[in-house]
Structures are given as structure tokens and as C-alpha cells.
């Protein structure tokens, strides 16, 4: 198992008027070949910023430090044009929602857009690829769907087209942004099936989501983010069986199937995060040490956790 992407000490700040918002604080993470990594976090945890940093999509007011290594090349510090080329050739993105589909382009054009641009795929080949992919996804008449526009397709078909977009052409890693947001159970089911299909066609996959049940089904490893920090990285099975970090534990407890217990307190402000462990104001296990010392991301028995409980 090799590492496809290694993120080292990634910090991202946004410069607003008069203040600095820290969105990511020293994130260390790697995406292994062949795995599905689920990045779990609630809104404001910085998971989307993480995704955007990998794709060099951060807005102008963002200041980043640290490294994002792909085959030893730092994507973050690379010349922008080269970086975009590298990202385009090796990574692909399944965006969130149908809004990212261009309403004025036919479906197949969008599915094959990336290989056509980065691998000199011809138009006919592109069309063929799109039809084949859509067929593999379980669409009964893929030719018709490939020639349709956004508004002519149903929700399920669009979902398939989105995933097809992500896996058309060769890619080392597929990144998926919140694939289940606002979807009902049956659609979620479909997405899970589709992603399983997609997993077989790519090197690795990273899924960003806040949907615990969904990640439980698709991911191999889970990385839990809280307030711009990675607080736990575990195997999925272990995580759902026995979460290590108090936050992970509380998060699982808040699921309807596990008692619907809310986490006390509010998400902390990103402008002035609490000192020490960022979870300490809401933590039921906090000690004096947690108040002013930031716990390290300790590695124990194959999982990593940022809590003094385990140090």
C-alpha cells in the first residue's frame, strides 16, 4: 500500500476584514492506494476547505502553509498552471449536487470532459466512454441519457451521471464532496452502490461527508475532523464499534438510532477557538491539562487520536 497523497501540517487561514479565521490547523492525513477514506465532520469543521486545498480551489483571501504531497511533489507550492495540470490528470472530483452540471451541455460532454481535456481523448471515444459508463451504472438506455440535457434527466440518472463524471478517464484518486446531502434513504442507497462501483475503477477515494451512517457503509477508514483539526483516524469498523475520541463518541450517540443524544454546548467560533484541546468546553472527560495544552495526534494500535486520554 503506497500513499497517493500525503498532507503534512496543512494550515489554512482566511483573512477577513480585521480578523483571521483559522479554518485548518495542522492537518496530517494520507490517502492510501486502494482505500476509501471518509472525512467526517460537521459544518464548520474544515472538511470542505481540506478538499478545496487539494484542488487548489481556495479563494484569494486564503493563506495556507504546510504541504500536500503527490508523488513527492508539493501541490500547494507548485506553480499554479502546473498544479492544475497535475490535478487534472491524476485527481477527479464528484461535486456536490446537480447544480454543478452545466444545463447547456449534453450529458456525455460533461462526463467525458476531463479525459477529453487531459488525455487527448477524441469526441467519438469520449461519447463511447460516457455511454459505456452510464450503462455500467445501470441506466437502461445509456445512449439516450448521454445525449440529454440536465433538465431532461431524473434525479437518479443525474446521480449516476455525476459519479460517471468522477470515474471517466484514469485517475489516481477520486474525491467526493458531500454525496448524500439532502438525499432520502433510497437515493442514499443508490449513491452507495454507485460509489462501490466507482471504487473498483480508481486508485483511491476520499469522501467528505457529515453522514455517519453513509460513511459506515462505504469507507475503509474514517478521519474525524473537529474545528479545523483531525481528532481521530480509525478503521471504519473499529470506529463505529468503539470510537476513541470523546467527540467521535458523542457524535455517534447523537444518531437517532443510538439515542439521539445531543452534544452539549455549541460549535466553537473559528475566529477565536478555545485554547488547548478545541473540544474541551463540550467534553465530558476534560482534565486541567486539556484547558491550555493542545493534545498531539497520538498513534495507538493502528488508530490515531488527539486526546490526552490516550497519551
Amino acid at each position: 500500500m503506497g500513499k497517493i497523497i500525503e498532507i503534512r501540517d496543512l494550515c489554512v487561514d482566511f483573512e477577513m476584514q480585521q480578523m483571521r479565521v483559522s479554518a485548518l490547523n495542522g492537518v496530517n492525513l494520507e490517502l492510501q492506494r486502494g482505500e476509501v477514506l471518509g472525512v467526517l465532520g460537521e459544518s464548520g469543521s474544515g472538511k470542505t476547505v481540506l478538499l478545496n486545498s487539494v484542488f487548489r480551489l481556495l479563494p484569494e483571501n486564503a493563506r495556507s502553509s504546510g504541504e500536500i504531497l503527490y508523488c513527492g511533489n508539493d501541490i500547494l507550492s507548485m506553480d499554479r498552471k502546473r498544479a492544475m495540470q497535475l490535478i487534472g490528470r491524476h485527481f477527479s472530483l464528484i461535486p456536490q449536487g446537480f447544480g454543478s452540471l452545466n444545463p447547456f451541455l449534453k450529458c456525455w460532454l460533461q462526463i467525458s470532459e476531463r479525459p477529453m481535456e487531459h488525455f487527448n481523448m477524441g469526441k467519438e471515444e469520449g461519447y463511447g466512454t460516457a455511454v459505456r459508463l452510464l450503462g455500467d451504472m445501470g441506466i437502461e438506455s445509456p445512449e439516450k441519457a448521454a445525449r440529454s440535457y440536465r433538465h431532461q434527466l431524473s434525479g437518479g440518472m443525474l446521480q449516476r451521471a455525476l459519479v460517471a463524471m468522477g470515474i471517466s478517464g484514469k485517475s489516481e484518486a477520486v474525491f467526493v464532496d458531500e454525496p448524500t446531502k439532502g438525499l432520502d434513504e433510497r437515493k442514499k442507497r443508490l449513491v452507495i452502490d454507485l460509489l462501490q462501483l466507482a471504487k473498483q475503477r480508481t486508485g483511491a477515494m476520499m469522501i467528505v461527508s457529515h453522514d455517519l451512517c453513509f460513511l459506515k457503509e462505504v469507507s475503509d477508514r474514517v478521519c474525524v475532523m473537529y474545528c479545523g483539526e483531525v481528532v481521530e483516524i480509525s478503521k471504519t469498523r473499529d470506529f463505529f464499534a468503539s470510537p476513541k475520541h470523546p467527540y467521535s463518541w458523542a457524535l455517534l450517540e447523537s444518531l437517532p438510532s443510538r439515542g439521539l443524544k445531543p452534544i452539549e454546548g455549541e460549535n466553537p467560533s473559528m475566529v477565536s477557538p478555545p485554547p488547548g484541546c478545541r473540544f474541551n468546553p463540550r467534553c465530558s472527560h476534560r482534565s486541567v491539562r486539556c484547558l491550555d495544552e493542545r493534545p498531539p495526534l497520538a498513534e495507538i494500535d493502528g488508530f490515531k487520536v488527539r486526546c490526552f486520554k490516550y497519551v
Partner: protein
Amino acid sequence: MKQLSPKSYETPSQRLLDSAPLLGCRDVVKIFKSYLKGGFTALAGASISIRRGELLALIGESGSGKTTLAKILAGLIQPTSGEVFFGDKPLAKMGSKDLLHFRRKVQFVPQYPDLALDPTWYIYDSIAEPLRIHKEARTREEELEKVRSVSSRVGLGLDQLRRKPRDLSGGELQRAVLAKAMVLSPDVVIADEPTSMLDPSTQAKIVHQLLEAKKENGFAVLFVTHDLSLAEAISNRVCVMLGGSIVESGAASDVFSSPLHPYTLSLLSGSASGLEMNRGTGCPFYSQCDARMGACSKSSPPEFMTGKARSVRCWLFGQDY
């Protein structure tokens, strides 16, 4: 906050089932006019009734018509045919005074909390607005008192009341929307997927606050959701919606432990694939049903009662009666 288990909210179902329906509708059909496609049938004869003090979960996936049904019950849109009644009076025959009473007693909580409040108003004013419209508060002090008490019930502090919607998080917004719905002390709160856009921990918090408030004030809740586990955790009674009609209803414990309709079964087993629903004649689930019969494709099954307050729309149960 004390630890709560879902069962602690359950009131003896028998008592609930005996009481007269508070708000309900009979055979409601709603066809949205469309110049291009010649109309879209969102509701095909749905009947539902909400009883005093219960928490009724309306389960359905997107496109099943649950939001339309919720809005019709809240009096926000007019049904094409069928009848909505509040108490014993049909909505269509209400005078302006009765209608005002209805508006006060039935409150609607929309799906997107970030759009449910006027972005230019302070949260306090938005929450106080129903009081002002219905002239419920005689003085500023009384209004302040009412707004504060209802806000603290959902966990909103004075600090948040002084802000505008854009300065609040999604969870805080949804709380404000809840507070606004509860400020008139309604009899029924219709919540249209109030937590579908929220994070799990926030969802848990909001649901708790809703349930706490319900317990204190005793209003009934129609909780529209597509989240089965959430529905199972909180509801007394469940209606499952499919293709514009209610295919199964009954006490929550019964439905979740022994689902009758094949669709409910497939939902609970998580095996439902993403195939499209049948929009033609016959049962909407016909094309995917494992137990389909000849009758299923010809006509839509009527409601069969399989027990007290338990009904299902499936030809499978037709022979029993």
C-alpha cells in the same frame, strides 16, 4: 440536560387513538398546473389526521408529495379537490375569524432554516411577529416576556435574539424558526423536514428541544421526514407516503416492528434500489414490488384496515376483508 431515551416521550397510544382528530384531510388531490406537461399530480387522494398531543411522523422520499401534503394541512396551498378540516370545520368553509384562529393554532416550520426568516429583520422581531399580527401581546413587556420564554425553551439566548439571520448558524436559525412557530402556543406544529439540512449533533439538539417543548405545551407535531431512524426514535404514529398517497399508517412501534406494505418493508430493510415509481394507473410501487399481482397494475388499491388505527394500501391485504 438530562439523558433522555426515546421511549420516555411515548404516551399510551390507546388514549391517543381514541381522541378525535384535531387537524386532518380527506381524499386530497393536488394537481400542479404546468403549461408544458399539462399538470403534475402531487397528491392522489391522501387522507391523514393528526390527533391532539401526538407526534405523527410522515415518512416519504423526495417526490412522494409529503411536503405538498404538509403545506395543504397548514393551509398554505389549496387542494385541487378533497377537504381539509381543523377541529370539525372544513377549512374551505371557514369565515375570516375562524381562519385567523386556524392560522394561530396551526404553525408551519419550513425545510430550509436559512430562508425561513426575513434576512433584514432581527431574530427577536421575527419571533415576535406572530404575536404582533394576532395582537397577542398588549405591551412591549408582555411581548418581550413571551418571546424570551419561548426562545429559552428552544435554547436561544438574548444574544442571538439581537442578531440577524446571517449571523446565526443553521442550528440556531432552526431554533429561531421553531420559536417563531411556538410563540402563539399552537395546537399543531407541522415541521417539514426541519433537520434534513443539519449536522447530526445539531439535529439531535433541535429534535430534543422540539420534543421538550411539545411535552410542556402539549401541541401535536406532524414531523415530515425521510429519515427512518429519526422517525422511529421520536414518533408515536407513522404514515408512510408513496406516490401522492398514504400507503401505510399505524402506531410507530407496530409499523417499524412489523411493516405490512412491501414498500415500507423495502425501506426498512434498506434494499430499495433507485428505480422510478410508477406514475401511471395502479399501485405506485407496482414496478418494483416483489409481491406484485395482476390487480396491482390495473387499479390503485384502496385503504384496508388491518387493525385498530392501522391501515395499508395494498391488494395483498384485500382478501382478508
